[in-house]
């Protein structure tokens, strides 16, 4: 049975490269562009800066990858981060324990995610509507709680809690910030889950064809619930990290437009917006690319107000390119 392990011909290889690893190509092109715009781009301080900036949204994007691969969408992630980080700070100030706050954040995120999942799977609601409603509820509740003022970390906890986002370790003289480690570790973990576990295969199966999945014995509703739950959990983690980065969470603006950034990262990363196909490495690079684009634009003095327009345009272009690729297959 030698034929099974036949090597790809050169033409096949090129085709495969374009079809399946296009995110690597765009990543490399973007790097070249970034270096030509900003000669300091490849300095270690800039690289870790990009990683730290990416971490909060990048971690959520891993969950969003799952949600989208399962054929769903979650647009409540930004508001989730707001309510989780805001209330997280309340818990921190009350208990003076980073870890109790940590547990609280994960718990609250998982709870919100489960509600999203239940609405979609058991309530048969379109994910767009269910999570839109959840977005509105979360944002409104945290606004009401904050009454316009920010949630500020008390002086007692200031120095310890700050380290979550600002701390770092040194390896071979390289400073590696905690958020960078978290982002990379989570990405590897999710890469393994999606590639090499039953859960991952089931997520792709459900996103690819719900009927076939059901008839192969996949617990479709269970999968739908769990992808939202995991995304909620990651929002919890990310909310905790976010709180440490800003130290004062403004209810109205915290996590604003995160859903856009996160979905954009998944889209650039080559995950099919209709579900069934995608790679975590793509999302990982996609999240980085999104920040690199921002980085380039800042260098080019593009006003930050235009960020939304740019992330919208990125999603459109990325998804259109996917469609073109799918057609040419």
């Amino acid at each position, binding site marked *: *049975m030698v034929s*099974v392990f036949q090597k790809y011909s050169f033409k096949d290889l090129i085709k495969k490269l374009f079809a399946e690893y296009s995110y690597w190509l765009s990543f490399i092109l973007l790097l070249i562009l970034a270096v030509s715009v900003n000669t300091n781009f490849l300095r270690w301080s800039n690289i870790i800066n990009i990683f730290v900036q990416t971490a909060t949204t990048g971690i959520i994007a891993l969950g969003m990858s799952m949600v989208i691969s399962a054929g769903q969408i979650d647009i409540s992630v930004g508001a989730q981060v707001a309510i989780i980080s805001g209330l997280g700070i309340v818990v921190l100030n009350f208990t003076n324990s980073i870890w109790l706050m940590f547990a609280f954040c994960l718990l609250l995120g998982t709870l919100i995610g489960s509600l999203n999942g239940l609405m979609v799977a058991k309530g048969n609601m379109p994910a767009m509507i269910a999570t839109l409603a959840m977005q509105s509820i979360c944002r409104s509740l945290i606004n009401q709680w904050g009454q316009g003022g920010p949630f500020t970390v008390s002086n007692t906890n200031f120095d310890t809690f700050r380290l979550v986002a600002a701390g770092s370790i040194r390896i071979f003289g390289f400073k590696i910030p905690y958020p960078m480690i978290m982002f990379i570790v989570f990405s590897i973990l999710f890469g393994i889950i999606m590639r090499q*576990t039953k859960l991952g*295969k089931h997520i792709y199966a459900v996103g690819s064809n719900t009927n076939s*999945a*059901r008839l192969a*014995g996949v617990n479709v509703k269970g999968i739908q619930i769990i992808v939202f739950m995991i995304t909620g959990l990651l929002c919890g983690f990310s909310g905790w990290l976010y709180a440490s980065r800003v130290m004062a969470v403004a209810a109205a603006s915290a996590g604003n437009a995160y859903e856009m950034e996160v979905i954009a990262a998944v889209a650039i990363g080559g995950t099919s917006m209709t579900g069934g196909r995608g790679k975590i490495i793509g999302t990982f690079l996609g999240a980085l690319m999104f920040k690199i684009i921002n980085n380039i634009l800042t260098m080019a003095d593009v006003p930050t107000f235009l960020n939304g327009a740019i992330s919208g345009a990125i999603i459109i272009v990325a998804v259109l390119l996917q469609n073109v690729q799918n057609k040419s297959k």
Partner: protein
Amino acid sequence: MLIEMKGIVKDFGPVRAVDHIDFTVNSGEIIGLLGENGAGKTTLMNVLAGTFPPDEGEIFIDGNKVQISNALHAMRMGIRFIHQEISLCNDLRVFENIFLSEELLRKNGLLNKKEMINRCLKVFERMQVQIDPNAIVSTLQPAERQLVEIARALLFKCDLIIMDEPSTALATKEIKRLFDIMRQLKTEGVSFIYISHKMPELFEICDIYYIMRDGKLVAHGKFAEIDEQQATELMIGRHLADEEFLNKPYYGQEEVILSVKNLSGKSFFDISFDLHKGEILAITGLQGSGRDLLADALFGAEEYTGTLQVKNHTLKQGSTIIDHMKNGIGMVPRSRKERGIHNDLSIYDNISMAFFNTKFKRLLIDSRREKERFLRQQKALSIKTDQPKNPITSLSGGNQQKVILGRWLEADADILLFDNPTQGIDVGTKFEIYRLIIELAKNGKAIIVFSSEFPEIHKVADSCIVLYKGRINARLNRDEITEMSIMYYSTGANLEAVKNG
């Protein structure tokens, strides 16, 4: 109007559904289009009605070459296609459906409901049917929906109406009325292409026959010049390969592996039968006989009451697909594209999908074991591919079906349900699948084949249950399985006779 199709070819992947067909329709002619399921009749008609373009060939209307690019375009040229599956919007009203995309407007641009409803009433009157144009379609009976489809075709000026098995959902009285309407329209110069399996109907209403087999035109002529027997023979053909299956031995063993008792569901009632190890049972029935839902119910994908006794376990109401799988039941579902394959996933993953659900106990998936599973099934089922990492859609339909079958073999299913297993599969591979089914029975698997194709049942089945209106109407032994007997019992002819006698 004269419509000519010349040298029409249509391929679906590796399957040539329509193979160089010439077809002529004169005005005021009723043409009966005959052929077994999968002979390419519907595909040919879809080409004519603009559903999709032909890969080769030309269409002429009154001598002018035309390109029929979509259904609306075909309608404008006077060609109407009434599909086999009713294609009405269930949430809209009857008149809204009838005028869909051709709504009548008032001068101010708003809908002219009154006029539309009036015209509907006129058509219904002509058809002598009583349907409220204001009714929501979902509240209508299936037969009424079919009549609405026909009304939609009649309402507008058209020269050719194509009907794909319109009588399946209609009662005898309604069919008679339909024929009256057809005869009247014929005198007005309207032509029909009538697709049906029912010989008496065809001989009653049609003037000309066209018979297709395996995508090719095998004969055409006047109905007056042939009889039912000849038509059937032309349709079925006498394949040499048939003989291979003629003397298939019975591999059934003593042990009853599945015992179904009083199974009832939405559209099937009080189904009971036993299945032995190594036995191949066919279950057939016309559309609407409950065959599809029964297949799903046996797999736990559809709710049912009653019990399934598998070895020592009892499956009953509320048992899930997983419960059924754990008891060794596997299903190769009908409509492979929609219900069988995961088109984004690799061949590896497609083959392992059921295995993951019942047998897989580890944390991480080992790609070496995935490969082993694939190689084992590739060898057993001779799946033709050299790149199992590619998406399953890179395979032909028959090989895809083998992958789905392999899925259940890897999950160690003892009872295999094949629901319409050779749908959209070319003839050569069909035979391969039949051989596989028989081979599996020989190895002790118990098999149920749900099928509407007589040649298929004839080749593989040890016995055949014929459903009529959701109930078992007959259980035929291998030597009793003939096209006649299956047609007889699946149309309920025996019951009608009792009623009338």
